[in-house]
């Protein structure tokens, strides 16, 4: 609902930041605006009282995607191609702008015509939440009513990781993932790398734990834990793992495997994905914890990138 000046200003800002992100010629500025855009949208979700979505947008939409884009920018800079090489010709630009405007207008017209009191599946979720094992309706949908979707989503991340790894050089297979980090001893990065992880660790674990009754959950918590891991790795506190490390691979798929195992175990209780009401809380919590760890490691590996030959130290 737009019911205050704050909301109006927020909407205007979102549009301005979105425009700035796509219209700038400078790649770095565009990325920064994109991150700001994600944060603004997260605030908008908060105003719509969709706290789970706001958390996910802030953590993944702004945070993780921002880091990935900055990482890509860093690689572009190394090969001296940071400038946007080809500028879209004006006629194409006009066609795209018209199409996007037309589509937005059509969606807007259609949305206004919809029943403003439509509740979707909220009544059905509330009627069945007592049997779901958890109290947060979002978690009930993600881990019980539509657990199949969430299982597939968690596998999407693993497929993305395999996809990123296929971009490695043949000769780099078996090496450590990512580029070698050079860190100045006791510099800013290393001090941050020592002080921030304990705090991040606590917040991440809290998010996973809180997910059963309050906003939070495996994906949001996992993203924060991934940030902790990344910061520690970038600070040189531990070397990045090797791409063919069996323990690493097991930790990437542990969450989805446990999820699938519980889903298959459901056949004993009446069908795939069935969680008996009295065991549901424990099973969901177990899935969330292991899944959060796997998501954290997978996201971290996605940011670190494919394995690369370790350069000879200068």
């Amino acid at each position, binding site marked *: 609902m737009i019911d205050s000046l704050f909301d109006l200003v927020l909407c205007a800002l979102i549009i301005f930041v979105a425009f700035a992100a796509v219209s700038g010629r400078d790649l770095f500025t565009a990325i920064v605006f994109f991150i700001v855009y994600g944060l603004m949208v997260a605030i908008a979700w908060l105003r719509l009282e969709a706290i789970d979505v706001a958390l996910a947008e802030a953590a993944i939409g702004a945070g993780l995607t921002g880091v990935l884009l900055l990482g890509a920018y860093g690689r572009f800079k190394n090969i001296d191609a940071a400038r946007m090489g080809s500028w879209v010709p004006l006629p194409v630009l006009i066609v795209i702008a018209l199409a996007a405007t037309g589509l937005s207008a*059509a*969606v807007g*017209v*259609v*949305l206004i*015509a*919809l029943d403003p009191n*439509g*509740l*979707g*599946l909220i009544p*059905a*979720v509330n009627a*069945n939440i007592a049997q779901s094992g958890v109290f947060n309706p979002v978690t009930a949908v993600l881990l*019980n*009513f*539509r*657990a*199949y*979707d969430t299982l*597939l*989503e968690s*596998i*999407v991340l*693993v*497929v*993305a990781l*395999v*996809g990123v*790894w*296929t*971009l*490695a*050089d*043949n000769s780099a*297979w*078996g090496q450590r993932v990512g580029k070698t980090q050079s860190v100045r001893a006791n510099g800013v990065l290393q001090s941050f790398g020592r002080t921030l992880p304990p705090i991040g660790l606590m917040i991440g674990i809290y998010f996973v734990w809180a997910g059963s009754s309050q906003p939070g959950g495996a994906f949001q918590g996992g993203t924060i834990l991934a940030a902790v891991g990344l910061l520690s790795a970038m600070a040189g506190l531990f070397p990045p793992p090797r791409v*063919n490390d*069996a323990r690493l*691979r*097991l930790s*990437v*798929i542990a969450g*989805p*495997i446990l999820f*699938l195992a519980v*889903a*298959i175990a*459901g*056949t004993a209780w*009446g*069908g*795939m*994905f*069935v*969680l008996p009401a009295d065991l549901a809380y424990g099973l969901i919590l177990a899935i969330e914890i292991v899944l959060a760890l796997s998501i954290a490691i997978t996201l971290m590996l996605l940011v670190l990138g494919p394995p690369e030959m370790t350069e000879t130290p200068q």
Partner: protein
Amino acid sequence: MPSSLALTAIIGAPLLGFFMTIVWSRAAAVVASLTSMVVLVAAVFLAVSVSAHGAVLTSLGGWDAPLGIELAADGLSVMFMIVSGAIVLVVGAYAQHEFVHPGTETRSGFAFWPLMLVLLAALNGIFVSRDFFNLYVCFELLTLSAVAMVTLNGKTESITAALRYLLFALLGSILYLLGAVLLYAQFGSLDMGVIGQSVSSSGAEILAAGLMTAGLALKTALFPFHGWLPPAHSGAPPPASAMLSSLVPKASYFITIRLWFDVMPELAGNPLTLALGGLGGAAILYGSLQAIVQTRLKMVVAYSTVAQLGYLFIVFPLAGGDSAAQPWSAGAWTGGMLHALSHALAKSAMFLCAGLFIISARTDDLEALRGIAQTMPMTAFAFTLAAISLLGLPPSGGFIAKYLMLTSAFASGGWIWAFLILAGGLLAALYLYRPVRIMLSLPKQPGQPFKPISRWWQVAPLVLALGAVFLGIGSNEPYALLQIGRPVAAETGL
């Protein structure tokens, strides 16, 4: 109970295989073969069950739609699952020679197997899903695994092609997702059955269906959105191309068919069916002409996919819109589905043949393949059989499919569709005659430049090509099976 178990096994088994091949890559090829066998057996079991008792339905987690997600298998899903399972099984056997390296693990030797299995899981997931959001998730799995497969050979141009493929497919995903969101906003449900019962031609429904169709058309490489397909499909390693070209665009086409024939047939008016049919016709002509001028075998085969996908969209004017209630509708619809299946078998066979030729001649330059039939008669035979099915010559599956579509076109008086079907067949004869003639002609100078290839390896494409032919000879069972669970009543046929 057993059939609902089979319904979950066709997705669960390849997912388990996916995990196993990641941690246990030494045994990946064996795991992949066993998994695709399990999937094939489960799909055949489902086919028997569906033809005996009708469509199979199961609610995951015990939650019925609209709260939960339901999976359902009707005749159409079962046929697509059997053909996908068979193709993946054969491609997996073929790929043992290409992606199994003794000793230390290699990049492509690691990545191919999990990607292949998750691709199979995503395909099966799409063929049985009844939920529009779940389909979006399945498409994400399918797209990511397909795009990653294009990069497997590590060449710069393949990675460029993969990136372009990714951008097109993601644009398609976003359009599709926007449509699904609008449907949820309108109906408070994502379930096909629930939505299908209350379609009312509101603005939201029309916009949603239009967005989803545009998104799916992008993923199906319907002309003029085909630009990503030839470089991606010809740049991937041949076993990957075989799956990408034969199965992946069929998944998005499958959902387009579900959307317009099962969920909202009321909305499929003439403007839509004529537009889709027109683009399909343009695809036939453009793809065929491009295939004629290519100089590399894999590009000929890839552009042939652009053309053959065009036929699938002629189903819309022949079986949908005003034709939906006509007696020829069932024949046209079934012809389209049989075309999708026989093209899948023939096209995967062709790409595997091309792969063997490349290994033997070290290039897929058409001129360099002159006389290769003397070294590899079995593979040249397989290629020719596949070409016969693509041309639509009897007794192949392609013949039955085109015959059904053609008789429907004549019955409906749609001469333009009949012309396009016939013209496509003639053009296919032109672009396929050239490679076949080059293979069968005598080599220019004596002395074989070709590396001999093991007989066992050459069996794989032959099996698939024979499958395409037998789909025509034994077309009665597939025809009957495809009719099961069709909501449209027109089952009289011609």
